[in-house]
């Protein structure tokens, strides 16, 4: 899933300062699973804002609403009926959702309530961890199912570097060394000989470096 973090109340307040009537828009997908921008977080943020405004003796009207997905126009269209009643949309979706809402409602400021961080997994209740950087050319078959691009701080295709110590990365003792994980898994698979192969220079054109990406499935188009 896409993992996001809600922005601080302070940053949110500075963004919404010019507005008196705002639509706080949650998303039922990834940001709900990672507890950053679902219906529950919409409620929490609305309460925090209302409390702050009432303490400050200021007024604000907040409409709380959560849609199924902010990355699909059929759901974004559902707010068409009342979006005009508000001066700004406070989107709690990931960066993709925020932008898609902005594309649809062109005269409304759409403000980000979260920082979108990574593609990851739930390690345990309340803990998420990065797994993929969406580089567009998957080599997990060669690296024991563990991605060196996402999980090595230097994205080394032929790691580990000289900073791997006791299974940890030189950047932070809390971060696992991606290449230690790869070597361990290759051993478990009985494929440690694969380590000896040099992985060639990567073609980054399928990644962000090739410019904004688009995928077209002609067979699915209407």
């Amino acid at each position, binding site marked *: 899933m896409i993992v996001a973090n809600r922005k601080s109340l302070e940053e949110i307040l500075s963004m919404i300062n010019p507005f008196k009537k705002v639509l706080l828009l949650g998303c039922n997908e990834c940001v709900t699973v990672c507890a950053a921008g679902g219906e529950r977080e919409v409620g929490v943020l609305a309460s925090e804002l209302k409390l702050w405004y009432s303490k400050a003796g200021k007024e604000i009207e907040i409409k709380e609403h959560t849609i199924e997905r902010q990355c699909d126009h059929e759901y974004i269209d559902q707010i068409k009926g009342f979006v005009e009643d508000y001066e700004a949309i406070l989107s709690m979706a990931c960066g993709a959702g925020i932008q898609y809402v902005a594309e649809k409602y062109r005269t409304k400021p759409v403000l980000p309530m979260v920082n979108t961080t990574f593609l990851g997994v739930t390690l345990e209740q309340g803990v998420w961890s990065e797994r993929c950087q969406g580089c567009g050319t998957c080599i997990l078959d060669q690296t024991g199912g563990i991605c060196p691009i996402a999980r090595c*701080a*230097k*994205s*080394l*295709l*032929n*790691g*580990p*570097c*000289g*900073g*791997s*110590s*006791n*299974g940890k990365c*030189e*950047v*932070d003792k809390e971060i696992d*060394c991606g*290449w*230690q994980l790869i*070597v*361990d898994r290759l051993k478990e698979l009985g494929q*440690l000989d694969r*380590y*000896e192969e*040099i992985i*060639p*220079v*990567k073609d*980054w054109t399928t990644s962000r470096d090739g410019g904004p990406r688009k995928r077209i499935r002609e067979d699915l188009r209407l």
Partner: protein
Amino acid sequence: MKTKSNIEKILESGGFVVTSECGPPRGADPEVIRKKGNLLKGVVDAVNVTDNQTSVVRMSSLSACVILKEMGFDPILQMVCRDRNRIAIQSDILGAAALGINNILCLSGDHQKFGDHPKAKNVFDIDSIQLIQTVRGMREEGRFLGGEEVKGKPILFIGAAENPFADPFEIRAARLGKKAKAGVEFLQTQCIYNMERFERWMGMVRDRGLHEKVAILAGVTPFKSVGMARYMKNSVPGMDVPDEMIERMKGVPKEKQPEEGIKICVETIQRLKEIPGVRGIHIMAIEWEEKVAEIAKAASLLPRPTSNS
């Protein structure tokens, strides 16, 4: 001889190599380099010039290499993959060769987190092993990574680093094997304090026959004080300083500690010289270049066979 490298020449004639390093200054004053260079004259066969080491901005490695070259040294251009993509890397390789540099050391580079610009974006378009392949391809096949022809091949002697003290230990010799396969010709190791582990690594290297393909130069760094020993142990990534080293440094009064540090360093070199497959010593006296001559002399590494300075 594939190149004009002084260390390649010494290695080819079966000699034992001595290298040291020179860290460029955090400013534009060339005198800093010349002063450091003067301390190394006649003491070493080649000088490494670090490339923004520990991710701290310094005078560029290539510029400092040229200053040392003018003084008669045979500099080793260190190049990290952290700050340049394949376009800039290949361009700098051509520039270095054009300016008469004969050696390159291919490195991944410390993470920028450790430096003075931790908020920087890193590059890591290619890694150190791919960098070795890149230089090799430009020199041997006369081809850029993109496949185009190099008009005027860069004739550089190709080096790399390896840390026998980093983990996972079991693949550390295999990793050198990958570097050998990529085309590396000489190797400088991380500072050696844990001799037992280094000897085990060398055993694995010899088992694979890698010592015959790659000239291994063993790295040493003298401690200036017990404080430095502790810092190296606890704060420098990938460093393995055994407790007995700390105890030994702690065991002498503060004013005698620099002397003790040098004594440890000389003893280490003497042991390293006896290890089969060790073809030279790389003395990294960090901001203590004035001691390299003393260490080399005490370890019977002087005079140098074909000092070109």
